[in-house]
């Protein structure tokens, strides 16, 4: 059986003007490889502003035209070209966008949930279904005729999720579904996502919030400067982090206030100054000679996919 969605060696870069007519190349995602199965949530964890939303846009085929993309994305083993992407998005692959700003401010909620159709019969059918899904998420009937500005943050989030469900998708890509919500709403959203997974949906959950990632996902892919440095089972984020193999992942886990709040020196540079070799070597206490001039390839160690010459096995 093939995986539901596979991404292989995906790189996305932009060229931008910075001084008069001088251009520079900005690589936001480099050599990204990951996959997701049905009944599975894969969390993609990266810091804010790291361009991880672009991964979602690449899968959906809605990147801006000046983006340079290489690598391959496959749906059930089939290469996704622009045509297939257009066919799949909104039907088989649904998107839960990051911000409530993605709702049209001039359109009633129900109208944007069902989308545009000029077939009256189909419209009735969709409206019925929309009502069902809204009921499921406890959105009362009076919400149907509201405009986005009348919704609270939590309600708007529910509207976005309901909208994504209307076409019975197989894959959902959720881009930062939790920030800006209070604790209760976050919990609700998390439960909603897990429920969807149990129904069989494969989900890519893009987030910078490590708590959301740990609570919902089955596996976590950790991004550093646009590189996947580790794809590991979520259950490894436990104890003292001794099963996390990449030095960065481990220090990230041990820096959490509820674990050790441990201090690690060094800072994540900007995308304009990605170091040569391993992107993390400047801050890495375990670096070896190769790290300085050679980029480690992704490889499998103890069931974890990792990009590191000197992984922390044996619970060092």
């Amino acid at each position, binding site marked *: 059986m093939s995986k539901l969605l596979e991404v292989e060696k995906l790189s996305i870069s932009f060229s931008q003007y910075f001084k008069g007519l001088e251009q520079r190349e900005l690589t936001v995602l480099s050599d990204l490889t990951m996959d997701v199965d049905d009944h599975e949530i894969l969390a993609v964890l990266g810091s804010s*502003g790291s361009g991880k939303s672009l991964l979602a846009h690449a899968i959906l085929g809605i990147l801006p035209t000046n983006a340079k993309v290489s690598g391959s994305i496959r749906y059930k083993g089939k290469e996704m070209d622009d045509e297939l992407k257009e066919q799949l998005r909104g039907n088989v692959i649904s998107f839960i966008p990051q911000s409530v700003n993605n709702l049209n401010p001039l359109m009633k909620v129900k109208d944007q949930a069902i989308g545009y159709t000029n077939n009256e019969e189909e419209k009735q059918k969709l409206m019925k279904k929309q009502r069902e899904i809204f009921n499921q998420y406890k959105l009362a009937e009076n919400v149907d005729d509201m405009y986005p500005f009348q919704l609270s943050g939590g309600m708007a989030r529910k509207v976005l999720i309901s909208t994504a469900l209307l076409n019975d998708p197989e894959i959902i890509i959720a881009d930062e579904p939790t920030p800006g919500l209070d604790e209760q709403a976050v919990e609700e959203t998390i439960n909603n996502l897990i429920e969807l997974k149990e129904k069989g949906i494969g989900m890519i959950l893009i987030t910078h919030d490590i708590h959301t990632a740990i609570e919902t996902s089955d596996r976590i892919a950790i991004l550093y400067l646009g590189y996947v440095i580790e794809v590991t089972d979520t259950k490894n984020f436990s104890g003292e982090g001794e099963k996390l193999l990449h030095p960065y992942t481990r220090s990230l886990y041990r820096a959490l*206030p509820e674990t050790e709040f*441990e*201090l690690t*020196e*060094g*800072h*994540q540079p*900007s995308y304009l100054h990605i170091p040569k070799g391993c992107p993390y070597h400047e801050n890495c206490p375990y670096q070896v000679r190769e790290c300085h001039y050679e980029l480690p390839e992704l490889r499998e160690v103890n069931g974890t996919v990792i990009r590191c010459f000197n992984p922390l096995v044996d619970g060092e």
Partner: protein
Amino acid sequence: MYLNANNISYAYKKNKPILKNLSISIPDNKVIGLMGDSGSGKSTLCKVISGYIKNYTGTVTLDNNLIETKDFYPIQLIFQHPEKTMNPKWKMHKVLSESWNPPQELMDTFGLKDNWLGRWPNELSGGELQRFSILRALNPKTKFIIADEISTMLDAVTQVQIWDALLDYCKQNKIGILAVSHDKELLEVIADDILLFNEINKL
């Protein structure tokens, strides 16, 4: 020294107060955590205390003296989004020296690299910029720091680094901190006391 906000009330819209009869007291040797839901008015309170909002009712005092507004304001606010607090057309050395010129030692403590000073704000990452905005707020005349979700958008590793340096400096220099966050675990680690916003705000 004590920072006291007494009976603060404020409304953006008439008859729809967001802060009501709110009082809070912060000693200069402590970190007070303030926790609350989004949209509850935490940031509004921060702006009142640090002098950005002026037409409130109630008083903000330092050891019972009202604060002279023509001089450097001794209560400095650090925002969540550093990139929004910097002039995009100023290089970093100008952004920093608008407040003061910190000694090299302090720059090292906060992990500021010399070559960052010649860069524009859009050439640095969020974590790098937040280091600047914190150091900028630590002018020697600063007596209190209001930290409004300053590490919310940073990864956990950067979060520790920033708080570690800030807490250390403030302890040595007797600067009190009001740390606002919705992250209970974080406040439990960094704060001496935690206040719940809904309990002190008498709406």
